[in-house]
């Protein structure tokens, strides 16, 4: 192993223990001086209990507004190799599928231009290249695009969309998450690369309500697969499960609307009251499947706490067909309508979820041109502070 430039007794402690160690990972690339200094500075943070990175700093690729996060050391004299230590967000392929060849291509590119340290993947979904200099930004970018890769988003733009493994491997996918994610990403390249929104806008595509990409919590627009018709039941397989699963306790009692009945022989589902929560299907995957009339619920407005408090997405379109052949026209149209409105009236650093709360959901819908439906709310208003229009007299 490469000899270390700094003594790092604190970090060394984190090489111990059974879970794979990020310190070991860093040391694997320690043949690069940049990584030596990154380790040295990190040890200093461990000693002093504080970050030694300075605030932001705008760096980027020519013509792009996002994709690179500028980062500078606040101890550049002591750790000159990380005086600049920017990250690059490289747009991942849908559902994070790779071939060994593609991975090697990425590694080679990163070896040529940066630290050799990565995050696989960033929280938004990107391949994150961790640490390079300002000079390398353009060459890295050229190298990436030459090999078919492009940068993801950062700043006030559409962020890199991501999706669950969906139809590629999952029997429950109610639409093609990989295709939708790819299609939307390609459609909105301009919005991805050139910040012109009030703040960030994230898409996440989940094939069913299990939401394996946490779309409802982590995106401004969650496209969540679901179905309209009846859960497909294989009664023989249910009987089989009954040998190991306590169907009453584990399924009937836990169904949110208690619409599943089990008499020891047949499983009856009152599909009109099924809220597509997936639980019964999850527990008996060989016996139950989502219905055949499939599509997605579109939910919007999710975000982390800054500024107005965290939000989960809320229902925007209860059911939308997600037909590949339609090229997701409906979703695109809705998206553009949202961006236009929010783009014009949103405040600086106001996520779309906060914007909707500020202007009121009803006004928002009216502008977007969608009719209000009761599925959008948990319950109608309880306060009587209603802004009546003249139309109530019609």
């Amino acid at each position, binding site marked *: 192993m490469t000899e270390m430039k700094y003594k790092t007794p*604190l*970090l060394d*402690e*984190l090489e111990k*223990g059974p*879970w*794979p*160690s*990020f310190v070991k*990972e860093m040391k*694997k*690339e320690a043949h690069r001086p940049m990584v030596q200094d*990154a380790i040295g500075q990190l040890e200093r*943070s*461990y000693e002093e*209990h*504080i970050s030694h*990175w*300075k*605030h932001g700093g705008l760096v980027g690729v020519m013509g792009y507004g996002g994709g690179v996060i500028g980062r500078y050391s606040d101890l550049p004299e002591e750790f000159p190799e990380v005086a600049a*230590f920017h*990250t690059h967000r490289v*747009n991942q*392929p849908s559902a*994070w*599928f*790779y*071939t*060994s*060849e593609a*991975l*090697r291509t990425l*590694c080679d590119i990163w070896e040529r231009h940066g630290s050799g*340290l990565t*995050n696989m993947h960033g*929280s938004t979904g990107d391949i994150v290249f*961790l640490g390079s200099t300002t000079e390398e930004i353009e060459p890295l970018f050229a190298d990436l*695009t030459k090999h*078919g890769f*492009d940068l993801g988003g950062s700043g006030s733009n559409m962020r890199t969309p991501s999706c669950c*493994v969906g139809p*590629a491997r*999952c*029997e429950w*996918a109610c639409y093609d998450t990989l295709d939708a994610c*790819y299609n939307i990403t*390609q459609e909105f*390249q301009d919005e991805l690369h050139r910040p012109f929104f009030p703040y960030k806008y994230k898409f996440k595509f989940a094939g069913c*309500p*299990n939401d394996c990409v*946490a779309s*409802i919590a982590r995106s401004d627009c969650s496209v969540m697969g679901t179905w309209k018709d009846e859960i497909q039941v294989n009664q023989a397989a249910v009987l089989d499960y009954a040998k190991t699963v306590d169907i009453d306790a584990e399924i009937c009692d*836990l169904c*949110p609307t208690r619409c599943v009945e089990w008499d020891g022989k047949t499983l009856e589902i009152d599909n009109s009251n099924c809220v597509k929560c*997936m639980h019964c299907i999850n527990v008996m995957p060989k016996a139950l499947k989502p219905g055949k009339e499939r599509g997605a619920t579109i939910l919007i407005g999710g975000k982390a*706490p*800054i500024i107005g*408090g*965290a939000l*989960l997405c809320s229902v925007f379109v209860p059911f939308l067909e997600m037909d590949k052949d339609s090229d997701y026209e409906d979703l695109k149209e809705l998206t553009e309508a949202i961006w236009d409105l929010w783009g014009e009236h949103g405040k600086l650093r106001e996520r779309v979820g906060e914007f909707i709360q500020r202007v009121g959901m009803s006004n928002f819908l009216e502008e977007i041109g969608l009719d209000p439906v009761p599925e959008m709310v948990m319950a109608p208003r309880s306060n009587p502070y209603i802004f009546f229009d003249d139309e109530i007299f019609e």
Partner: protein
Amino acid sequence: MAEERITDIGPPNYEQFLPPVIKKNYGKWDHHEILKPGVMVHVAESGDKLFTVRCGTPRLLAITSIRKFADIADKYCDGHLRWTSRNNVEFLLTDESKIEALIAEVEEYGFPIGGMGNCISNIVHTQGWVHCHSAASDASGTVKAVMDELMPHFQNMELPAKLRVAYACCLNMCGAVHCSDIAILGVHTRAPVIEHDDLPKMCEIPTLVASCPTGAIRPATVDGVQSVEIVDEQCMFCGNCYTVCPAVKINNAQTDGISIWVGGKVSNARVAPKFSKLAIPFIPNNPPRWPEVVDAVVKIINVYAENARKHERMGEWIDRIGWPKFFELTDIEFTKYHIDDFKHAGETYMRTAQLRH
């Protein structure tokens, strides 16, 4: 002359990376089964089988390791692998007989197999002191320390349900920890210090004033400089002012630390998604292994594992037994910090006499 600049090509089309068995059975999977911790099979309507072996990673990966994964994929998986939404690697095989050898080689290289079914999967986390300027604590270090203790739960499937742990190093919550069964969150606990000399050069005062959710920031002239002042009592340490203005320093080696939140979830299974709720307001930073944080997380998980029913996520369990019982069982003190005082605080008050006495 330079070549023509390529831009806006977007990510490579995923199709080229899919293994043949997936291309063939795309959208036609019939069911799956977890064969053992970290190993599952998906069976297609055609009868074809796809085996998945899941391996934990620290997320921060050297290209050395990635190349090793590529080699392993070549050896056992015809070069096919993927990452999951929680930063695990999945090796994709069709030949069941290769599974054990694959596992052996991955484990040999230092990466554990597991994270499937009713277990603790990888901790979604963020940059921490490795790369972020806002971090109130380190991400990778805390996660490593915690996962070292939670390894058994990664490698077996003996929990009542899935248990998702997430970590974020500041209130920006890049790990979107706000809906996790257990969330570990770096917190600042002191109002920022203003560098009045730099401020006018670096920041726009109106934007800065507007950035504060509680209106704690006011324009002020300090030593003749046009700057701002922060009303200490109104600051709740969110750091948003720091995000918009580098001259307002929120990091503080003495007073930054960690808070712990519980009971969130994302899936729509059984109950609606939920935010995580405050369990422990503050634990001082204690690198390199944050023992108090590790102990707290382990304690909560043990109590949950002992008491929850099958399929019950952390938040569902707490809702069933009630928060008073949660605090009692975990020995965590309920303090004034636990009572919400932000905008919708009133919506969290107990507005029924339905109480256990």
